[in-house]
């Protein structure tokens, strides 16, 4: 692989909760067009790292770069405007709004004037929302309140919301947890399509090893907040340290 500038890069990222180092001196890089996995046992700091990257949590040490710019002290809405989108492990769609409204609200406001925000969403925005919903098999549920959807459908909606502003990188936090195998296949297929056809970059937190092996070119393993290993899915599966972290020493 040609070494180009990373799209998203963390150098020495460290986050303490009190005395506990939730993320400790982690270096990583995600290159444009990659699908990268982030795995590790529960409590290993994966979601904390996501929160640091999306700037919801401030970090104690280290630096984060997105598209070559230092975003260590940027605000969440600023990195969102730069083209970073994410989903949440605990699904956070707006349950009282309809599926379509959830999508429409996800097209970002880039400060184009408050008067424009008082007018209804443009036809183009509606069209994009409809296309994405069809792509994610949610088209027929467009006018249902999001609270009526099943867990799997809500995950798909979350992905749709993340895609709405046409981001460059999407951080998916456990996109497959609690979802039936058929839908997992759908999600996998959609991620692959978005990656190949539109060149979207993904960073995935996953417990589903098959999912990771099928999609990702590289995987990072976290354990107790530290980077335990990195490599291709095959290398990771056979790495003794990783096996020990997951299953304990023999």
């Amino acid at each position, binding site marked *: 692989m040609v070494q180009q500038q990373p799209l998203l890069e963390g150098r020495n990222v460290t986050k303490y909760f009190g005395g506990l180092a939730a993320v400790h001196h982690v270096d990583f890089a995600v290159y444009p067009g990659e699908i990268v996995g982030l795995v590790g046992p529960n409590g290993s700091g994966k979601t904390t790292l996501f929160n640091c990257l*999306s700037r*919801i949590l401030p970090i104690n040490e280290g630096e984060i770069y997105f598209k070559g710019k230092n975003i260590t002290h940027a*605000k*969440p*809405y600023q990195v*969102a*405007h730069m083209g970073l*989108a*994410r989903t*949440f492990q605990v699904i*956070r769609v*707006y*349950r*009282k*709004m309809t599926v379509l*409204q959830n999508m*429409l*609200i*996800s097209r*970002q*406001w*880039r*400060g184009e004037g*408050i008067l424009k*925000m*008082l*007018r*209804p*969403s443009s036809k183009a925005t509606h069209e994009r929302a409809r296309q994405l919903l069809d792509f994610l098999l949610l088209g027929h549920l467009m006018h249902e309140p999001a609270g009526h959807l099943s867990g799997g459908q809500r995950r798909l909606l979350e992905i749709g*919301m993340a895609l709405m*502003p046409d981001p460059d990188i999407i951080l998916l936090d456990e996109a497959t947890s609690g979802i039936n195998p058929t839908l997992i296949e759908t999600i996998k297929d959609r991620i692959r399509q978005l990656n190949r056809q539109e060149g979207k970059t993904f960073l995935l937190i996953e417990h589903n090893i098959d999912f990771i092996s099928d999609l990702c070119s590289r995987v990072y393993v976290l354990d107790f907040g530290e980077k335990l290993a990195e490599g291709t899915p095959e290398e990771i599966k056979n790495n003794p340290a990783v096996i020990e972290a997951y299953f304990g020493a023999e």
Partner: protein
Amino acid sequence: MTTSLLAKRSGGRLALLLALALLLIPYLHALATGQPETGSAGLAALHSRAESVYCAKGSTPTGTILLVETLLIAVATLLARGWKTHGNPLQEGLARHGPYLFVFLLLTTIPFLLAWRTGSSACTRGKAFFWESVFIDVFILAILAISYNLLFGFAGIVSFGHAAFFGMGAYTVGLLMKHLAFPWVAAVIVALLVGVVIALIKGVVGLRIRGLYFALFTLAFAEVFFLLAGNRILVDITGAEDGFTFAVPDFLNMTKNRLFFYYLTLVLMALAFWLVRRLMGSPTGQVLRALRDNEERARMLGYNTFTFKLIALVLAGILATGAGVLRGIALKGASPNVLGVGFTFDPLLATIIGGIGTFSGPVLGVFILRLVEQMLRDTVLTLGSVQIDIGERWALILGVIFIIIVLAFPKGIVGTLQEQYRRRKGG
């Protein structure tokens, strides 16, 4: 020809045109049938012709026409809702806006209904005249409640200091007209600007803290104005705890032109209602709802939530200040109680009773709050030989009524009814 004309207009605009037409008919009728006052000329003569009809004691043709129109709209709305044709803009407009049109027309009819039932005139001292002032008070408070609901119900910002806007509206308009001889238009504009400034200060300083802490901050902020208004230091300007009075132009004088003031406040309330509905239907409104339900998610969607909260605060501030301006002009004066916590808790109570985050709930809440209070105040219950003066204990009874309402309607009257309707519709 007419259908193509109709098709060009949206349902909402047609409903608005219909409302205007319905309101003009009784006035034109009065103009055509009335007798002008002797000695008046020009516009004044024309207007006095109309007045001679609708100011008559007891039942008036104006009242009858308005009542018939109100009933017609009720029937038409029910028909439009029952009919399931698509694409007819007039029918769609009626189905959607008919209930609001009905309530609006009913409220325009009320002075004449009161005049008819009590045998008094809608324009001169008497029972109808008195009840009009109660309704004016209700309309002004409704604007305040609509403003409070925008902040509390839709944007999820709890404020205990809404009285600061309300009171400063009344004080600013009064002080400017009294001491600096401002014309009323200028005084109103400056008062609204003061409301914007207060909102910006509250927002920039206070919105960085959240929830109850922000609420307490606004409470303290409002108390500063309350204490300042009642302080003897400023007695020459504000009249300290006694407040002050000021002169208003004749047409805005509620004692002389009560019916006009009634319609003025009614229209402004309707305008405030429409404004908030329109705002909440827009993308900005959706973002406000989103940040109420989950602010972190909204930030991650790329919204600078602080800006949006500030917008909500400024708009609510303008509405509440406007309500205060009306109150100052209505009473032709202001005293420190308009800055007191009462004018924060009344709209809060009205919002909770009517339904937090519903459009009509807070307005309904204010109507219940004020009208029940007014009715209780001069009620004497006679049970056989025992006479119970409810008027003395109205606050206690009102309290019991509130507790019953809150128990029976946990999400407010409108909120609970809406939920039941939705559940039934959903199966």
